C-alpha cells in the first residue's frame, strides 16, 4: 500500500486561530486525517523539532505554516520546514501578510520590551529584569530565541508555494484550498487560494451600494448604529471590501461589521492600504484642502485601519524611526 502523503502544521507568531480553523473543518477533518499522515503539529501532536530535522529533504508533501516570523526560532523552523517540504503553504493572514502582529512594525522592539517589562501599569519588575538569550541556573542552561527587530511575512524569509488567506481562513476557504492541493491540478506557484476579485463580488449588500457614492464624513462601528441591510461603505463606515479578496462569503458583513481586509489584496495590487486609501479619498465630496482634512479627521488611525493585516507586506513595511532622545515611548 503506498504511503499516505506526509503533512505538517506549524505556528509562528500567531494567536492559534488558524489551528482552530483546521479543527473547524469539523467532519471534513476526518477525511483529511484519513488521507494524510500528520508528522508534525505542535498544538495537537507530540513530534519534536529533532524529528523534523531527521526527515529527508522534501519528504513532507505539504506544510501548513501560520503566524508571522518574529523570533529566531520561528525563522529557523520556517527554513527547516521549507527544506523538508515539497510544498509550503502560508496559512492565514500572519504568514501571508504579517497579520495583526505586523502592526508592531510601527514601534521599535526596544520600545515594546520597555513597555512590557518596565512601564506598563500592570508590570511589577523592580529589578528591571529583561529576557536573556541564555541563562544558567542550578547548572542547567536554558536558551530563548532572539527577538527580531522586524515582523515579517513568511515569504520574506523563505520561498512560499501557496497562500491560504484569512484571519483565520474560513472553513470554506480552507476546504477549497485543501481540495485544490490534494487534487490533481496545482495552480501556478505563488497563487493565493481564493478568488482574485474583490469582496464586493460576493457581498450580500452589493445591490444596496449606490452608483454615485461620495463621502462627507466617515463613521466607525463605535459611533454609529449600523443598518443591517445597507452597504457599509454607503453608511460611511470604512469597509475594506473593495480592496480585499473575496472567498470568505463576507462573513463579517453578514455579522453586520465592515470588512477589515484580512484576505489581503488581489494579485494586481502591490499595496492594499494604498488602494483603499486611493478609492475612498477619491470620492470625498470636498475640493478644498482644509475641508478635505476635516472629513479625513473622521478616520483617526489610517495606518491601523488600512494596514491592519498587511503592514509587513506593504510597500513601506515598517515605520522609520529616527534617533530621538530617550523617551518612554520612542517612535510612538
Amino acid at each position: 500500500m503506498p504511503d499516505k502523503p506526509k503533512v505538517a502544521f506549524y505556528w509562528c507568531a500567531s494567536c492559534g486561530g488558524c489551528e482552530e480553523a483546521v479543527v473547524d473543518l469539523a467532519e471534513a477533518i476526518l477525511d483529511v486525517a484519513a488521507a494524510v499522515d500528520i508528522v508534525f503539529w505542535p498544538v495537537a501532536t507530540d513530534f519534536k523539532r529533532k524529528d523534523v530535522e531527521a526527515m529527508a529533504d522534501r519528504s513532507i508533501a505539504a506544510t501548513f505554516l501560520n503566524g508571522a516570523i518574529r523570533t529566531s526560532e520561528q525563522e529557523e523552523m520556517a527554513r527547516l520546514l521549507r527544506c523538508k517540504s515539497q510544498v509550503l503553504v502560508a496559512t492565514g493572514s500572519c504568514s501571508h501578510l504579517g497579520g495583526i502582529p505586523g502592526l508592531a512594525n510601527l514601534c521599535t522592539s526596544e520600545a515594546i520590551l520597555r513597555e512590557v517589562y518596565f512601564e506598563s501599569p500592570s508590570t511589577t519588575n523592580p529589578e528591571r529584569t529583561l529576557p536573556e538569550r541564555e541563562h544558567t541556573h542550578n547548572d542547567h542552561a536554558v536558551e530563548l530565541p532572539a527577538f527580531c527587530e522586524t515582523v515579517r511575512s513568511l515569504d520574506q524569509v523563505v520561498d512560499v508555494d501557496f497562500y491560504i488567506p484569512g484571519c483565520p481562513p474560513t472553513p470554506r476557504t480552507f476546504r477549497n484550498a485543501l481540495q485544490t492541493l490534494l487534487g490533481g491540478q496545482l495552480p501556478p506557484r505563488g497563487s493565493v487560494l481564493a478568488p482574485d476579485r474583490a469582496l464586493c463580488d460576493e457581498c450580500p449588500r452589493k445591490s444596496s451600494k449606490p452608483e454615485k457614492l461620495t463621502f462627507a464624513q466617515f463613521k466607525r462601528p463605535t459611533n454609529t448604529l449600523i443598518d443591517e441591510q445597507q452597504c457599509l461603505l454607503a453608511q460611511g463606515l470604512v469597509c475594506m471590501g473593495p480592496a480585499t479578496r473575496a472567498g470568505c462569503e463576507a462573513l463579517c458583513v453578514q455579522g453586520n461589521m465592515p470588512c477589515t481586509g484580512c484576505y489581503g489584496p488581489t494579485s494586481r495590487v502591490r499595496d492594499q492600504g494604498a488602494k483603499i486609501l486611493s478609492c475612498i479619498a477619491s470620492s470625498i465630496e470636498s475640493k478644498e484642502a482644509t475641508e478635505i482634512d476635516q472629513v479625513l479627521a473622521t478616520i483617526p488611525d489610517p495606518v491601523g485601519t488600512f494596514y491592519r493585516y498587511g503592514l509587513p507586506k506593504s510597500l513601506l513595511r515598517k515605520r522609520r524611526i529616527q534617533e530621538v532622545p530617550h523617551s518612554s515611548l520612542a517612535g510612538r
Partner: protein
Amino acid sequence: MPDVAIQSNPESSRIGVYVCHCGTNIAGTVDVRKLAAYAGQLPNVVVSREYKYMCSDPGQALIEQDIAEHKLNRVVVASCSPLLHEPTFRRTLGRAGLNPFLLQMVNIREHVSWVHLDKQAATQKTEDLVRAAVRRVSLHKPLEKRRVSINPSVLVVGGGIAGIHAALTLAEAGKQVYLVEREPTIGGHMAMFDKTFPTLDCAACILTPKMTAVGSHPNIELWTYSDVVKVDGYVGNYKVQVKHKPRYVNEELCIGCQECITACVYKEGKTPDEFNLGLSKRKPIYLPFPQAVPQIVVIDQDACIEFKSGKCKKTCIEACGERVAIDFQQKETFDEVEVGAIILATGFKTFSPDPNPHYGYGRYPNVYTSLEVERLINAAGPTGGEVVLRDGQHPKAVGIIHCIGSRDANTNRWCSKVCCMYSLKLAHLIKEHTGADIFNFYIDMRTPGKGYEEFYDRLLDEGVHFVRGRVAEVSDWAVHPSEEGKLVIRAEDTLAGFVRRVPVDMVVLAVGLEPQADAQEVRRLFNISCSTEGWFLERHPKLAPVSTFTEGIYIAGACQGPKDIPDSVAQAGAAAAEALSLIDAKFVELEPYTASVLEEECSGCKSCVPLCPYQAIAYVNETQKAHINEVLCKGCGTCVAACPSGSIRQNFFEDEEIFEEIEGVLTYA
C-alpha cells in the same frame, strides 16, 4: 512580431537606444557618448547609438535600418521633449513596420541639458532616465489609434473682425458655420473705430460689407445676443449648447425700420449708450449702431418702463403696427449644435484707467481714453464727429499719453502693440478736426508693420509734437498764468534732458489691450489654457499660433494676444484653414490612452463610476460589473488609480509600466 510574448517574457525584448546630440543643445552639457555606452550595456539593449540630429532624415533612417538589421522590437529615443517629437519617432517606427507605440522617449534636453549646469550631474540624470525608459519600454504593447469621424460644421465664438473673417472663409468653403456673438450686433471693436491705420481707411466702410456678407450668407447661422453655455465632446464631435438672450423682439419679424425707437415714451435717451462708451444716452429700445447686423432692435429690460412697472403705454408696439414684432413675453431659448471644430475669436478689452490716480481719468472731465476719443471723432458718434471738450468747446492743445496700462510693472507688463499706431492716427485725426496743437508723449515709437514707419514720418511732417518721456502725472494746478484752466502734463523729455510741463485742454490716454474680463471662464468652458497674463494659450508661440492644446479648438485675433487688424484677419484665416484641414481629412485619430475594465477581474464595487467627469464609466446591471465607453474615455487615468482591486487598465500607462519607470530611475543597474 512576438509582442505579446514580450509582455510575459521581457527577455525576448530587443531594444535600440538612440541618443541625440541635438547639435550642441544636448551634447554641450550631457556626455552623449558616455550615455550611449551606458545604455548599450543595459539588459535587452541590442544596439545603442548617438547621433547629431535624431529627428533629421538620416537620424530616423538609422533607426529604421537598425530595426530591420537587428530585429529590434522596442525603441528608446533620448532627445528633446516628447511633446515635440514623439509623433515624429512614432512615424519612424511605423515606416519600419513596428507598432508606433513600442517607442519610449526620454526628455534629456528641456528637462536636462537646458536646465542644469553641472555636466556630471546632468549626465548621471540622463543615465537614470534612460535606464528607466529601457525598463519601461519592454512592457509596451502595440496599440492602435482610435479613428473618429468629423462633423463638418464649425462654431465661431465672437463676431469681431476675426470671427467675421473666419466665418466667411469657412462659409465660402461650403461649411456650415455657427457664429455666436454676445452683443446684439457683430462688428466688435472695429465697428467703434473711425479710421484705421496706416491707410486711414474708414473702419465702417471696410467692415460693414463683411458684416452684411455674414448676415446674408446661406452657410452662416448668425446668433447674436447669445452665449455658449456648455461644451461637451471632443475633436470632430463637439456638442455645444447656446443660450439666446431675449431681445423682446421677434427676430423673424423685425425689419429694422426703427419706428419703435422714435415712438418710445422716452422722448430722449436716459441710459448710457454702450457703443458710445457712455458719452451719449440711448432709449430702452435701441439699435446698437446704425449699421448693426442683424438690423433688429433690442429692448433693455433694466431700463424699460414696461418691465419695471408693467404700466407703459407701449407706443413701440403701436408704431410697429401690423408686423407685431415686439414681444414682451419672450423668454431665453436654447439651441444645441454638433460641430467638428471651434474657433474662439473673443477679442479684448481696453485697460480701464480708473484706479490710476496719476492721469486724472474720472477726476478731470477732459481726460479721455483713446476709444472714447475715437467715438468723438466718428461722424456717427455722440458729438456728430466734433472733437469737443465737455463744455462743447474745441480744444486748442491736446496731449496723447502712450503706454497707459502697458509696459508697466504696476499694471500690465506687456506692450499692447497697437497703441503707438493708433495714437499717431488720433494725433492726425484730432489735428485735422480741430487744428489743435498735438503732443504725443511716448517711451518708444513702435511702428513695425507695413507702412507704419512711413505713417510716423508723415505725422512728423504734419507738425505734431513728440516728447520722448514717461508721463509722471496730469494735474490741474497751475504754477504759471499760462497754465490756468488747463490740464498740465508733466513728463521728463529724455531727449532734451529736462522735465517739461505741457498745458493742454484735453488729455487722451492711449489705453492698452487686456484679455476680456471673462477670459478665464470662457477658456474653462472650452477646456483650453491661458498664459499667465490671461491671453488664450497657443500650442506653440512660433509654429502653432492659432491652435491650442485641445484638439479641434482654435484661437484667432486679440484673444490670443494684443494685435492689430491685419494680424487678426491673418490669424482668422489661419484658424479657418486649420479647421478646414481637420474637417476635410474626414476623420481624426485619437491617442489610444484609454482605460478599460478587466471584465473577469472586476468585482462590481462601483467605486469608479462617480469618478469620471465624462460619464464614460457605467455600471452594467446584467453583468454586475463596470464598463468604460472607449469613445468617451479621454485617458486621464483617474479611475485606474482609484480602482481598489487593480481591475482597470490604462493603455500606455499601465501600473506595471509606471512601476518599472519609477524603479528604473532609482535603482542602479
